[in-house]
């Protein structure tokens, strides 16, 4: 019961000297490593859950945060990514297809694909009407790429939050 290891001291900072009436520390105050060391089986479950949440957030922008009940962040990410994709497609930005010829095309495709399901919606909406001969189209290309990178950032944020790191 009084296992005086440094790990237990870290995880049970809120216990009194006798160990009686111990009040567990709030989960967000405990270092994640200390939580994992108590039960390593839980660490794997947390990791798997975090990965699923990150993938969900990538496929549908904001969904990862919604699964974590972070409603404000979920709605903001959904609207921000959705509006950027709408603007980018509306400005006839270039939505890179898979199998690009050079590194820039492949990088552009990776950035665009970061929007998850919105990539296919944008491709359907825009069709083959991309036109980067004007500034509008060039800006639209940047809007689409930014939407993808922003969604990837949000998915990473949801992953960190799911692993109970500071987010």
């Amino acid at each position, binding site marked *: 019961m009084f296992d005086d290891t440094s790990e237990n001291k870290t995880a049970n900072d809120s216990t009194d000297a006798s160990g009686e009436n111990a009040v567990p520390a709030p989960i967000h105050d405990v270092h994640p490593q200390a939580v994992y060391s108590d039960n390593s089986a839980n660490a794997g479950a947390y990791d798997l859950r975090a990965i699923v949440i990150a993938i969900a957030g990538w496929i549908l922008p904001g969904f990862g945060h919604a699964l974590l009940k972070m409603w404000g962040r979920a709605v903001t*990410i959904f609207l*921000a990514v959705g509006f*950027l994709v709408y*603007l980018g497609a509306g400005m006839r930005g270039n939505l890179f297809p898979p199998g690009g010829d050079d590194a820039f095309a492949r990088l552009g495709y990776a950035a665009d694909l970061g929007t998850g399901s919105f990539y296919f919606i944008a491709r359907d*909406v825009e069709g083959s*009407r991309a036109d980067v001969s004007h500034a*509008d189209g060039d800006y639209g290309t*940047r809007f689409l790429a*930014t939407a993808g990178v922003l969604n990837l950032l949000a998915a990473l944020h949801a992953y960190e939050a799911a692993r109970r790191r500071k987010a």
Partner: protein
Amino acid sequence: MTGMVPLHLSHFQSLLLFAIIISLAFGTLGRRDPLERLKYAAWSFGMFVLVAIALGWLMYPFSR
């Protein structure tokens, strides 16, 4: 589903829209407290616009 009306925005309108959307996302992701989020988003928006205008003026002599 290809009947989308093309958008025609000026350079400055594009800049403002981009700055507003990204600043709101940064503020929401980067801070927890609503007031802190608003402050961070406002600061980020101001920086986006100011730096863009400053860079524009810096490049102006080379544009002709």
